[in-house]
Protein backbone atom coordinates (compact mmCIF):
# COMPACT_ATOMS: atom_id res chain seq x y z
CA UNK A 1 0.00 0.00 0.00
CA UNK A 2 2.90 2.27 -0.80
CA UNK A 3 0.69 4.52 -2.92
CA UNK A 4 -1.75 5.02 -0.06
CA UNK A 5 1.08 5.81 2.35
CA UNK A 6 2.16 8.59 0.03
CA UNK A 7 -1.41 9.88 -0.26
CA UNK A 8 -1.79 9.77 3.54
CA UNK A 9 1.41 11.73 3.98
CA UNK A 10 0.33 14.37 1.48
CA UNK A 11 -3.19 14.62 2.93
CA UNK A 12 -1.76 15.07 6.40
CA UNK A 13 0.56 17.78 5.09
CA UNK A 14 -2.49 19.43 3.53
CA UNK A 15 -4.31 19.41 6.85
CA UNK A 16 -1.36 20.79 8.79
CA UNK A 17 -0.60 23.53 6.31
CA UNK A 18 -4.26 24.58 6.05
CA UNK A 19 -4.75 24.55 9.82
CA UNK A 20 -1.63 26.68 10.25
CA UNK A 21 -2.71 29.02 7.44
CA UNK A 22 0.64 28.40 5.78
CA UNK A 23 0.23 29.59 2.18
CA UNK A 24 3.76 28.76 1.14
CA UNK A 25 3.53 25.17 2.41
CA UNK A 26 0.23 24.75 0.60
CA UNK A 27 1.75 25.98 -2.67
CA UNK A 28 4.82 23.77 -2.28
CA UNK A 29 2.60 20.81 -1.54
CA UNK A 30 0.45 21.59 -4.56
CA UNK A 31 3.51 21.68 -6.81
CA UNK A 32 4.98 18.53 -5.34
CA UNK A 33 1.68 16.67 -5.83
CA UNK A 34 1.23 17.75 -9.45
CA UNK A 35 4.83 16.91 -10.37
CA UNK A 36 4.42 13.40 -8.96
CA UNK A 37 0.95 13.07 -10.49
CA UNK A 38 2.39 13.76 -13.94
CA UNK A 39 4.79 10.86 -13.63
CA UNK A 40 2.39 8.46 -11.95
CA UNK A 41 -0.81 9.52 -13.74
CA UNK A 42 -2.46 9.72 -10.32
CA UNK A 43 -5.86 11.43 -10.32
CA UNK A 44 -5.77 11.54 -6.52
CA UNK A 45 -2.51 13.48 -6.46
CA UNK A 46 -3.93 15.85 -9.08
CA UNK A 47 -6.98 16.46 -6.91
CA UNK A 48 -4.81 17.05 -3.82
CA UNK A 49 -2.67 19.46 -5.81
CA UNK A 50 -5.70 21.45 -6.98
CA UNK A 51 -7.15 21.57 -3.48
CA UNK A 52 -3.86 22.71 -1.93
CA UNK A 53 -3.49 25.40 -4.59
CA UNK A 54 -7.08 26.64 -4.16
CA UNK A 55 -6.80 26.71 -0.39
CA UNK A 56 -3.61 28.75 -0.60
CA UNK A 57 -5.45 31.23 -2.82
CA UNK A 58 -8.43 31.37 -0.47
CA UNK A 59 -6.19 32.01 2.54
CA UNK A 60 -4.59 34.91 0.68
CA UNK A 61 -7.92 36.68 0.19
CA UNK A 62 -8.82 38.99 3.02
CA UNK A 63 -12.41 39.43 1.87
CA UNK A 64 -12.90 35.67 2.21
CA UNK A 65 -11.11 34.88 5.47
CA UNK A 66 -12.58 37.95 7.18
CA UNK A 67 -16.09 37.01 6.11
CA UNK A 68 -18.51 35.92 8.80
CA UNK A 69 -19.14 32.60 7.01
CA UNK A 70 -15.47 31.64 6.77
CA UNK A 71 -15.00 29.90 10.16
CA UNK A 72 -17.81 27.47 9.37
CA UNK A 73 -16.49 26.80 5.87
CA UNK A 74 -12.98 26.25 7.26
CA UNK A 75 -14.36 23.81 9.83
CA UNK A 76 -16.14 21.80 7.15
CA UNK A 77 -13.03 21.62 5.00
CA UNK A 78 -10.97 20.35 7.95
CA UNK A 79 -13.64 17.76 8.75
CA UNK A 80 -13.53 16.49 5.19
CA UNK A 81 -9.75 16.30 5.27
CA UNK A 82 -10.13 14.14 8.39
CA UNK A 83 -12.65 11.95 6.56
CA UNK A 84 -10.16 11.59 3.72
CA UNK A 85 -7.43 10.53 6.13
CA UNK A 86 -9.72 8.00 7.80
CA UNK A 87 -10.67 6.60 4.38
CA UNK A 88 -7.01 6.03 3.59
CA UNK A 89 -6.46 4.30 6.92
CA UNK A 90 -9.21 1.89 5.86
CA UNK A 91 -7.68 1.55 2.37
CA UNK A 92 -10.94 2.92 0.98
CA UNK A 93 -9.91 4.86 -2.10
CA UNK A 94 -13.50 5.50 -3.16
CA UNK A 95 -14.33 7.18 0.15
CA UNK A 96 -11.07 9.12 -0.07
CA UNK A 97 -12.02 10.43 -3.51
CA UNK A 98 -15.50 11.29 -2.27
CA UNK A 99 -13.99 13.35 0.55
CA UNK A 100 -11.71 15.16 -1.90
CA UNK A 101 -14.74 15.88 -4.09
CA UNK A 102 -16.55 17.28 -1.05
CA UNK A 103 -13.60 19.57 -0.28
CA UNK A 104 -13.54 20.74 -3.90
CA UNK A 105 -17.28 21.37 -3.60
CA UNK A 106 -16.75 23.52 -0.48
CA UNK A 107 -14.05 25.50 -2.27
CA UNK A 108 -16.26 26.09 -5.31
CA UNK A 109 -19.12 27.08 -2.98
CA UNK A 110 -16.98 29.59 -1.07
CA UNK A 111 -15.62 30.99 -4.30
CA UNK A 112 -19.08 31.35 -5.84
CA UNK A 113 -20.41 33.03 -2.73
CA UNK A 114 -17.50 35.30 -1.93
CA UNK A 115 -15.17 35.38 -4.91
CA UNK A 116 -14.79 38.24 -7.37
CA UNK A 117 -13.82 36.43 -10.57
CA UNK A 118 -15.71 34.81 -13.43
CA UNK A 119 -13.11 32.02 -13.67
CA UNK A 120 -13.49 30.03 -10.48
CA UNK A 121 -10.65 29.03 -8.20
CA UNK A 122 -10.63 25.33 -9.03
CA UNK A 123 -10.50 26.20 -12.72
CA UNK A 124 -7.61 28.56 -12.07
CA UNK A 125 -5.88 25.78 -10.14
CA UNK A 126 -6.37 23.35 -13.04
CA UNK A 127 -4.90 25.84 -15.47
CA UNK A 128 -1.95 26.77 -13.29
CA UNK A 129 -1.02 23.19 -12.53
CA UNK A 130 -1.58 22.04 -16.12
CA UNK A 131 1.03 24.57 -17.18
CA UNK A 132 3.37 23.04 -14.60
CA UNK A 133 2.75 19.57 -16.00
CA UNK A 134 3.59 20.90 -19.47
CA UNK A 135 6.62 22.75 -18.11
CA UNK A 136 7.90 19.47 -16.69
CA UNK A 137 7.79 17.78 -20.07
CA UNK A 138 4.41 16.18 -20.68
CA UNK A 139 2.53 17.13 -23.83
CA UNK A 140 -0.11 19.82 -23.91
CA UNK A 141 -3.00 17.41 -24.29
CA UNK A 142 -1.58 15.08 -21.63
CA UNK A 143 -1.57 18.09 -19.27
CA UNK A 144 -5.14 18.96 -20.27
CA UNK A 145 -6.29 15.37 -19.73
CA UNK A 146 -4.60 15.06 -16.34
CA UNK A 147 -5.92 18.29 -14.87
CA UNK A 148 -9.20 18.81 -16.73
CA UNK A 149 -8.36 22.32 -17.90
CA UNK A 150 -9.27 23.73 -21.34
CA UNK A 151 -6.72 23.43 -24.12
CA UNK A 152 -7.36 26.94 -25.47
CA UNK A 153 -6.96 28.44 -22.03
CA UNK A 154 -3.79 26.48 -21.39
CA UNK A 155 -2.22 27.53 -24.68
CA UNK A 156 -2.87 31.16 -23.84
CA UNK A 157 -1.53 30.77 -20.33
CA UNK A 158 1.63 29.03 -21.52
CA UNK A 159 2.09 31.77 -24.11
CA UNK A 160 2.25 34.28 -21.27
CA UNK A 161 5.08 32.42 -19.53
CA UNK A 162 8.78 32.18 -20.38
CA UNK A 163 8.56 28.45 -21.14
CA UNK A 164 9.25 28.88 -24.86
CA UNK A 165 12.37 30.93 -24.08
CA UNK A 166 13.81 28.29 -21.74
CA UNK A 167 15.67 26.31 -24.36
CA UNK A 168 17.13 26.95 -27.77
CA UNK A 169 15.18 25.21 -30.50
CA UNK A 170 17.08 22.75 -32.66
CA UNK A 171 15.55 24.36 -35.72
CA UNK A 172 14.54 28.00 -36.00
CA UNK A 173 12.03 29.57 -38.36
CA UNK A 174 14.52 29.78 -41.23
CA UNK A 175 15.49 26.08 -40.99
CA UNK A 176 11.90 24.90 -40.82
CA UNK A 177 10.89 27.22 -43.62
CA UNK A 178 13.69 25.80 -45.79
CA UNK A 179 12.41 22.27 -45.03
CA UNK A 180 8.90 23.33 -45.92
CA UNK A 181 9.94 24.81 -49.25
CA UNK A 182 11.93 21.68 -50.14
CA UNK A 183 9.00 19.41 -49.39
CA UNK A 184 6.22 21.31 -51.07
CA UNK A 185 5.64 20.16 -54.62
Amino acid at each position, binding site marked *: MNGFADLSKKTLQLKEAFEAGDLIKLRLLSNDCI*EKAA*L*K*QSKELVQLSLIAYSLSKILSKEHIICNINWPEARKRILEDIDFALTALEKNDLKAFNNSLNDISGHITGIDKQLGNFVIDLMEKARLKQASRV*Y*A*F*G*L*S*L*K*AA*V*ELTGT*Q*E*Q*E*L*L*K*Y*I*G*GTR*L*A*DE*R*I*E*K*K*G*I*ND*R*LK*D*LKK*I*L*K
Partner: protein
Amino acid sequence: MTNEIVFDSSSFISLVGACAGNLIPLLSKALNARFWISKSIESESVTRPMQIRRFELNALRINELIEQGYLEIHPESNELKRETERLLGLANSIYEFDHNKISIIHLGEAETLAITNLTEADVFCIDERTTRMLVEEPLALRDFISFKYKSKITVDEKRLKEFQDSLEETKIIRSSELAAMAFEKGFITDAKFLEGILFALKYGGCSISEQEILDYIKDASGKKGK
Protein backbone atom coordinates in the same frame (compact mmCIF):
# COMPACT_ATOMS: atom_id res chain seq x y z
CA MET B 1 -0.04 17.31 -57.05
CA THR B 2 -1.54 18.31 -53.72
CA ASN B 3 0.52 18.88 -50.59
CA GLU B 4 -0.86 17.31 -47.45
CA ILE B 5 -0.41 19.09 -44.13
CA VAL B 6 -1.74 17.61 -40.89
CA PHE B 7 -2.64 20.07 -38.15
CA ASP B 8 -2.57 19.59 -34.43
CA SER B 9 -5.14 21.74 -32.65
CA SER B 10 -2.43 23.81 -30.93
CA SER B 11 -1.43 25.29 -34.32
CA PHE B 12 -4.75 26.39 -35.67
CA ILE B 13 -5.93 27.55 -32.24
CA SER B 14 -2.84 29.80 -32.12
CA LEU B 15 -3.40 31.03 -35.67
CA VAL B 16 -7.10 31.76 -35.20
CA GLY B 17 -6.44 33.26 -31.77
CA ALA B 18 -3.91 35.63 -33.36
CA CYS B 19 -6.59 36.71 -35.85
CA ALA B 20 -4.46 35.10 -38.57
CA GLY B 21 -6.94 32.36 -39.45
CA ASN B 22 -7.43 34.05 -42.83
CA LEU B 23 -3.92 32.87 -43.74
CA ILE B 24 -5.17 29.27 -43.86
CA PRO B 25 -7.34 29.72 -47.01
CA LEU B 26 -4.68 31.89 -48.64
CA LEU B 27 -1.93 29.35 -47.98
CA SER B 28 -4.13 26.45 -48.94
CA LYS B 29 -4.51 27.94 -52.41
CA ALA B 30 -0.97 29.27 -52.79
CA LEU B 31 0.70 26.05 -51.63
CA ASN B 32 -1.86 23.79 -53.27
CA ALA B 33 -2.27 22.23 -49.86
CA ARG B 34 -4.92 20.27 -48.03
CA PHE B 35 -4.98 20.89 -44.28
CA TRP B 36 -6.12 17.87 -42.27
CA ILE B 37 -7.36 17.67 -38.71
CA SER B 38 -8.65 14.69 -36.77
CA LYS B 39 -12.26 14.17 -35.72
CA SER B 40 -11.36 14.24 -32.02
CA ILE B 41 -9.51 17.53 -32.49
CA GLU B 42 -12.60 18.98 -34.11
CA SER B 43 -14.63 18.14 -31.02
CA GLU B 44 -11.92 19.54 -28.71
CA SER B 45 -11.55 22.75 -30.71
CA VAL B 46 -15.09 23.37 -31.87
CA THR B 47 -17.83 21.26 -30.29
CA ARG B 48 -16.74 21.54 -26.64
CA PRO B 49 -15.46 25.16 -26.65
CA MET B 50 -18.65 26.24 -28.41
CA GLN B 51 -20.45 25.57 -25.11
CA ILE B 52 -18.11 27.89 -23.18
CA ARG B 53 -18.60 31.63 -23.68
CA ARG B 54 -14.91 32.49 -23.29
CA PHE B 55 -13.99 30.23 -26.21
CA GLU B 56 -17.09 30.54 -28.36
CA LEU B 57 -15.70 33.08 -30.82
CA ASN B 58 -12.54 31.08 -31.57
CA ALA B 59 -14.61 27.91 -31.93
CA LEU B 60 -16.89 29.68 -34.43
CA ARG B 61 -13.90 30.90 -36.43
CA ILE B 62 -12.42 27.40 -36.57
CA ASN B 63 -15.79 25.94 -37.48
CA GLU B 64 -16.07 28.39 -40.34
CA LEU B 65 -12.74 27.16 -41.75
CA ILE B 66 -14.02 23.59 -41.50
CA GLU B 67 -17.34 24.42 -43.16
CA GLN B 68 -15.55 26.24 -45.97
CA GLY B 69 -13.42 23.13 -46.51
CA TYR B 70 -10.07 24.70 -45.68
CA LEU B 71 -9.64 22.45 -42.66
CA GLU B 72 -10.65 18.91 -43.56
CA ILE B 73 -11.61 16.32 -41.02
CA HIS B 74 -9.82 13.05 -41.56
CA PRO B 75 -12.35 10.20 -41.57
CA GLU B 76 -12.28 7.81 -38.65
CA SER B 77 -11.42 4.22 -39.46
CA ASN B 78 -10.25 1.03 -37.80
CA GLU B 79 -6.91 1.49 -39.49
CA LEU B 80 -6.53 4.95 -37.96
CA LYS B 81 -7.58 3.64 -34.56
CA ARG B 82 -5.02 0.83 -34.74
CA GLU B 83 -2.21 3.16 -35.84
CA THR B 84 -3.14 5.71 -33.15
CA GLU B 85 -3.04 3.05 -30.45
CA ARG B 86 0.24 1.67 -31.77
CA LEU B 87 1.95 5.08 -31.75
CA LEU B 88 0.43 6.03 -28.39
CA GLY B 89 1.63 2.75 -26.87
CA LEU B 90 5.10 3.25 -28.28
CA ALA B 91 5.43 6.91 -27.27
CA ASN B 92 4.20 6.26 -23.77
CA SER B 93 6.63 3.45 -23.12
CA ILE B 94 9.83 5.20 -24.22
CA TYR B 95 10.64 7.07 -21.01
CA GLU B 96 10.80 5.53 -17.60
CA PHE B 97 11.14 6.96 -14.12
CA ASP B 98 11.51 4.80 -11.05
CA HIS B 99 10.18 1.73 -12.95
CA ASN B 100 7.11 3.68 -14.13
CA LYS B 101 6.55 4.37 -17.81
CA ILE B 102 5.86 8.05 -18.41
CA SER B 103 2.68 8.80 -20.36
CA ILE B 104 4.28 11.58 -22.29
CA ILE B 105 1.60 12.24 -24.94
CA HIS B 106 -2.17 11.95 -25.19
CA LEU B 107 -4.43 10.14 -27.60
CA GLY B 108 -5.13 13.41 -29.47
CA GLU B 109 -1.47 13.94 -30.35
CA ALA B 110 -1.00 10.27 -31.22
CA GLU B 111 -3.98 10.48 -33.55
CA THR B 112 -2.55 13.40 -35.51
CA LEU B 113 0.77 11.55 -35.76
CA ALA B 114 -1.13 8.50 -37.01
CA ILE B 115 -2.93 10.59 -39.65
CA THR B 116 0.43 12.00 -40.72
CA ASN B 117 1.70 8.45 -41.16
CA LEU B 118 -1.33 6.97 -42.87
CA THR B 119 -1.83 9.83 -45.32
CA GLU B 120 1.93 10.00 -45.90
CA ALA B 121 1.50 13.69 -45.29
CA ASP B 122 4.30 16.00 -46.28
CA VAL B 123 4.23 18.09 -43.13
CA PHE B 124 2.94 17.93 -39.56
CA CYS B 125 2.12 21.30 -38.02
CA ILE B 126 2.21 21.45 -34.23
CA ASP B 127 2.86 24.37 -31.88
CA GLU B 128 3.30 22.48 -28.63
CA ARG B 129 6.82 21.57 -27.63
CA THR B 130 6.73 18.03 -26.23
CA THR B 131 5.37 16.08 -29.20
CA ARG B 132 7.73 17.96 -31.48
CA MET B 133 10.73 17.12 -29.30
CA LEU B 134 9.61 13.52 -29.02
CA VAL B 135 9.77 13.19 -32.80
CA GLU B 136 12.80 15.37 -33.50
CA GLU B 137 14.94 15.26 -30.36
CA PRO B 138 13.84 12.41 -28.09
CA LEU B 139 17.08 12.33 -26.14
CA ALA B 140 16.98 16.07 -25.57
CA LEU B 141 13.45 15.57 -24.24
CA ARG B 142 14.76 12.92 -21.85
CA ASP B 143 17.44 15.34 -20.64
CA PHE B 144 14.86 18.10 -20.29
CA ILE B 145 12.59 15.96 -18.10
CA SER B 146 15.59 14.70 -16.10
CA PHE B 147 16.66 18.29 -15.51
CA LYS B 148 13.17 19.33 -14.42
CA TYR B 149 12.73 16.42 -12.05
CA LYS B 150 16.37 16.35 -10.96
CA SER B 151 16.09 12.60 -11.46
CA LYS B 152 17.35 10.00 -13.87
CA ILE B 153 14.95 9.25 -16.71
CA THR B 154 15.78 6.15 -18.72
CA VAL B 155 14.94 5.46 -22.35
CA ASP B 156 13.79 2.16 -23.81
CA GLU B 157 16.03 2.17 -26.88
CA LYS B 158 14.05 -0.50 -28.70
CA ARG B 159 10.73 1.31 -28.32
CA LEU B 160 12.35 4.60 -29.24
CA LYS B 161 13.81 3.14 -32.42
CA GLU B 162 10.46 1.67 -33.41
CA PHE B 163 8.79 5.03 -32.78
CA GLN B 164 11.44 6.91 -34.73
CA ASP B 165 11.31 4.46 -37.63
CA SER B 166 7.54 4.99 -37.82
CA LEU B 167 7.94 8.75 -38.13
CA GLU B 168 11.23 8.92 -39.96
CA GLU B 169 9.92 11.02 -42.83
CA THR B 170 7.87 13.41 -40.70
CA LYS B 171 8.77 17.05 -41.13
CA ILE B 172 7.46 19.38 -38.48
CA ILE B 173 6.56 23.04 -38.66
CA ARG B 174 4.75 25.42 -36.32
CA SER B 175 2.14 28.06 -37.04
CA SER B 176 5.03 30.56 -37.04
CA GLU B 177 6.46 28.96 -40.20
CA LEU B 178 3.07 29.25 -41.88
CA ALA B 179 3.02 32.95 -41.01
CA ALA B 180 6.58 33.31 -42.35
CA MET B 181 5.53 31.51 -45.53
CA ALA B 182 2.58 33.89 -45.86
CA PHE B 183 5.04 36.77 -45.62
CA GLU B 184 7.24 35.28 -48.33
CA LYS B 185 4.20 34.75 -50.54
CA GLY B 186 3.23 38.39 -50.08
CA PHE B 187 0.05 37.82 -48.05
CA ILE B 188 1.68 39.81 -45.26
CA THR B 189 3.44 42.78 -46.80
CA ASP B 190 4.91 44.57 -43.83
CA ALA B 191 7.68 42.98 -41.71
CA LYS B 192 6.39 44.90 -38.70
CA PHE B 193 3.01 43.27 -39.21
CA LEU B 194 4.67 39.86 -39.47
CA GLU B 195 6.48 40.58 -36.20
CA GLY B 196 3.13 41.39 -34.62
CA ILE B 197 1.64 38.11 -35.83
CA LEU B 198 4.65 36.06 -34.68
CA PHE B 199 4.47 37.56 -31.20
CA ALA B 200 0.71 37.04 -31.12
CA LEU B 201 1.35 33.38 -32.00
CA LYS B 202 3.99 33.14 -29.28
CA TYR B 203 1.68 34.66 -26.68
CA GLY B 204 -1.07 32.39 -27.98
CA GLY B 205 1.00 29.34 -27.01
CA CYS B 206 3.23 28.62 -30.01
CA SER B 207 6.52 27.29 -28.70
CA ILE B 208 8.83 29.87 -30.23
CA SER B 209 11.36 32.02 -28.44
CA GLU B 210 11.54 35.79 -28.53
CA GLN B 211 15.08 35.58 -29.91
CA GLU B 212 13.97 33.34 -32.78
CA ILE B 213 11.33 35.88 -33.76
CA LEU B 214 13.71 38.84 -33.56
CA ASP B 215 16.36 37.00 -35.60
CA TYR B 216 13.87 36.06 -38.27
CA ILE B 217 12.37 39.55 -38.48
CA LYS B 218 15.85 40.99 -38.86
CA ASP B 219 16.48 38.66 -41.81
CA ALA B 220 13.04 39.17 -43.29
CA SER B 221 13.26 42.96 -43.06
CA GLY B 222 16.66 42.82 -44.77
CA LYS B 223 15.30 40.67 -47.60
CA LYS B 224 12.42 43.05 -48.21
CA GLY B 225 14.76 46.04 -48.07
CA LYS B 226 13.13 47.66 -45.05
